[in-house]
């Protein structure tokens, strides 16, 4: 490295000769970044501003005065609140189902030395590629016809867990592939049973992934629309309720929900970063 440095320095400073007065690559990069962040955040900004507009149709341009009216209307909206409760209940249910299923699938696929694993992998990943409508509708019909379970929160939970478990599986697989299998052999050699090895060695190693997979599952579940819509029957979640309202025109109350979600996200992300920074220097 020092040799190549010496070479470039030894030359007739080609860098200064080549450098043009305008740094075009820097300018293009900066311009791209501005566009990128505008694309990401301008819609959010519009949504937030419209939530404070007195105009009953969400708008930024047609400003009818600053108002907190929509913030006071939200708590009085029973269907929205009930929908939120449903969303949270489904999300918790999805985590409870998807984490063990995903972990089981990942263990089989990473540990089983068999030609069947390729086929099995395709089957287990396919729910991610299946359209949400299909997942939702088939789950609803299957549970109704096979077990007489009417479409509702249970079928919505099962339908969502169907594809979210696949995401969890992929995350567990990535973690398991980085595992030092010698540790399990060492534990076995010291007299541990297979169950004990899993509980004391494998599971603690997987705990970080259990946490992140739970968060991802929660977010996937909360924001899901198509699968839920087709599996939930006459019940509703916050998201399907918002979707249903869209057909009768928008209300700034939806914007208020958006503002609250954005605020929660910012607070949570900041808290996470701060906690990381505090623990940072020790853990690296």
């Amino acid at each position, binding site marked *: 490295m020092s040799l190549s440095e010496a070479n470039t320095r030894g030359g007739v400073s080609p860098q200064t000769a080549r450098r043009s007065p305008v740094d075009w690559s820097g300018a293009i990069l900066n311009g791209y970044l501005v566009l990128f962040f505008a694309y990401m955040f301008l819609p959010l900004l519009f949504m937030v501003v419209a939530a404070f507009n007195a105009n009953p149709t969400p708008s930024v341009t047609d400003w009818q005065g600053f108002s907190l009216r929509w913030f006071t209307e939200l708590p009085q909206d029973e269907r929205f609140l009930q929908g939120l409760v449903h969303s949270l209940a489904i999300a918790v249910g999805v985590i409870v189902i998807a984490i063990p299923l995903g972990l089981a699938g990942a263990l089989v696929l990473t540990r089983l030395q068999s030609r069947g694993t390729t086929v099995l992998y395709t089957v287990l990943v396919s729910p991610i590629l299946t359209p949400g409508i299909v997942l939702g509708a088939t789950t609803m019909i299957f549970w109704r016809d096979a077990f007489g379970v009417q479409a509702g929160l249970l079928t919505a939970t099962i339908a969502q867990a169907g594809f979210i478990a696949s995401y969890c599986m992929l995350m567990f697989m990535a973690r398991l592939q980085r595992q*030092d299998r*010698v*540790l399990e*052999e*060492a*534990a*076995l*050699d*010291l*007299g*541990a*049973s297979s169950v*004990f090895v899993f509980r*004391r*060695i494998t599971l*603690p*190693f997987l705990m970080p992934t259990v946490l992140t997979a739970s968060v991802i599952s929660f977010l996937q579940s909360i924001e899901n629309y198509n699968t839920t819509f087709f599996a939930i029957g006459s019940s509703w979640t916050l998201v399907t309720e918002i979707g249903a309202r869209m057909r009768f025109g928008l209300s700034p109350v939806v914007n208020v929900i958006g503002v609250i979600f954005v605020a929660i996200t910012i607070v949570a992300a900041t808290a996470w970063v701060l906690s990381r920074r505090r623990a940072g220097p020790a853990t690296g």
Partner: protein
Amino acid sequence: MHGKDVVLDGVSMRFGDFTAVQPTDLTIEAGEFFSILGPSGCGKTTILRIISGFLDPTAGDVRIGGDTMTGIRPNARPTALIFQNLALFPLMSVWENVAFGLEARGIAKGARRERAEELLAMVALDGQGEKKPTELSGGQRQRVAIARALAVEPSVLLLDEPLSALDLKLRQHMRAELKELQRKTGVTFIYITHDQGEALTMSDRVAVMNRGVIEQVASSDDIYSQPATPFVASFVGEQNVFRGRLTAVNGEVAEVETAHGILRGRPRSGVAAGDEVMVFVRPERVGLSRNGGEASRDNRLTATIERRDLEGPFVNLHCRAGETPVMIHLPNSGESGPDLSGDAELGFQITDAVVMPAGDLARD
């Protein structure tokens, strides 16, 4: 703790078409420090994994303390294995690592803790129990692995090149510690290594292995001075090798016709006139007729001295006799080295030369 004997009865191991271990009979005595020495890929680790139960032999039977191990899983065998990379549990503290085997046996936490501290004290790690393995030095981690293995009171401790990750000084220090620990505990140690220094210094007996075959089992001294095969002779220590044809055996003297004329040495059993043979002589057994020294007249060679390397306690002379490189180790007498120019007369005694049927040599 007490050691048990380990018997391999016709054990062999095949992976597809590849035979990693040829049919092997081997008896390791109870309480013995036994090393299996060989180059990488010779099958020594396979033998270790068969004894510990991670591999089932293709044929044959392993018996520990007289009990057959067929069908007995690693966690039910009276063995403990120290892995090459140690395999300490990174998420557990040092004392939890040491007590892991006791935890698996359902022993209460207080008793586990107490026993772990005893073992840590034995390996001079008192008071380090709360640390994580990553906070320890290489040598300390090594000792944690040993304490963890001894915690389950094994009858046989299997060590898979456990010192290879340490630097030279520490390695030499740990040799003495391991030997001392083995003596103190009386546990049978089976030590796998490609490092002849480790095998020769620590072991009661050494098995030298090549291409899935144990070529010789003997004491360290005998492995060095009485090698049974060309591979053992060339793998352990340094050797000068002269190829030739055996012309006659007269009692204790074999005459070999070589490119350097007739050389004489002690015949190994199984050589007969007409055979392709090799004559082995250790570098420290070759003399030089120079500087007032007089080489043996039993065997004489003319050679050119090409280089002189000072190794500290001895001087290593690189010579060439025709096409054959010859090495001479001379004690460092403090005088300046011999004149490097011109030819020199080398010689060695009949009793220092070993004549064996030609065979595989160890690659340097």
